[in-house]
């Protein structure tokens, strides 16, 4: 069981690493946000699930496990809303990528 917990944490560290590399390499705002989602989903959830298993099995502390689960639920609920508002706000403010996007239906439909 200990190996499962370690594997979960290592996997989430790998995804967080990939997300950070992506954030540094991606060419524009929106692509950077896509890469940041990588950190905030698998990068966080692996650590939280590993923590739940560790505190439930090795520490025998059910209270801590439940609190970690609540943390994960709140994280999952609030994170996409912030991402959506950031992307929409950036677009409305006039942020456009340097290299042209392949297709931009938002511009075609809303700006004459």
């Amino acid at each position, binding site marked *: 069981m200990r190996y499962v917990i370690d594997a979960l944490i290592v996997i989430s560290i790998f995804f967080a690493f990939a997300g950070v590399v992506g954030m540094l390499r*991606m*060419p524009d705002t929106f692509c950077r946000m896509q890469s940041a*989602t*990588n950190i905030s989903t698998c990068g966080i959830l692996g650590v939280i699930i590993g923590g739940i298993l560790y505190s439930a099995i090795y520490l025998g502390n059910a209270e801590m496990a*439940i609190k970690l*689960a609540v943390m994960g639920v709140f994280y999952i609920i609030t994170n*996409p809303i912030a991402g959506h508002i950031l992307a929409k706000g950036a677009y409305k403010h006039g942020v456009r990528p340097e290299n042209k996007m*392949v297709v931009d239906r938002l511009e075609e439909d809303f700006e004459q």
Partner: protein
Amino acid sequence: MKKATFPAVISTAIVCYLFWLCITGQLAMLFEGEAAWQVLVAGALVSLGVGLFAGKYFIHERSFYLWHPARLFTGLLYCIIIFPWELLKANWDVAKRALSPKLPINPGIVKVPVDLQSEYGQSALANSITLTPGTITMEVTEETTDEGEQDYFYIHWIDVATAEEKEAGDAIKGTMEKWLRRIWK
């Protein structure tokens, strides 16, 4: 703003009470049979108060819709198995793109039709799409055509395979919409 109905207040209070039990650590103590009754009673009073004030914002449709056992089970299945699997696939895809030397990205904003009518269903789908790496929902609109109203999402997609609405929708939503349709019409 419409007034809060009694079932809406009760439904909100139940959700608040569950959170109270988790956060104060009483849920673990309930199983061991040593929960403090003062904390339980105070939690019930506070969640009723919160339900009175927040019920009308929290519940817009039928109050006990999600408490139906079949829907609750489908929802839990979606949250525990279906959605994490989609999440893992998308995570692996974006991580591969970020780490590969050529940086194979192809970004664009596509328009996707949505078949869900319920506003809870739509927000669940939009949040699922945003949480999946590689896609961000940017705008939700409604258009009236001859056959009735059709809702659309504008989605920023990191690798645009096709700009055609239906195909892009199938590629982005995957199995998520099919499962959400079993919960909300």
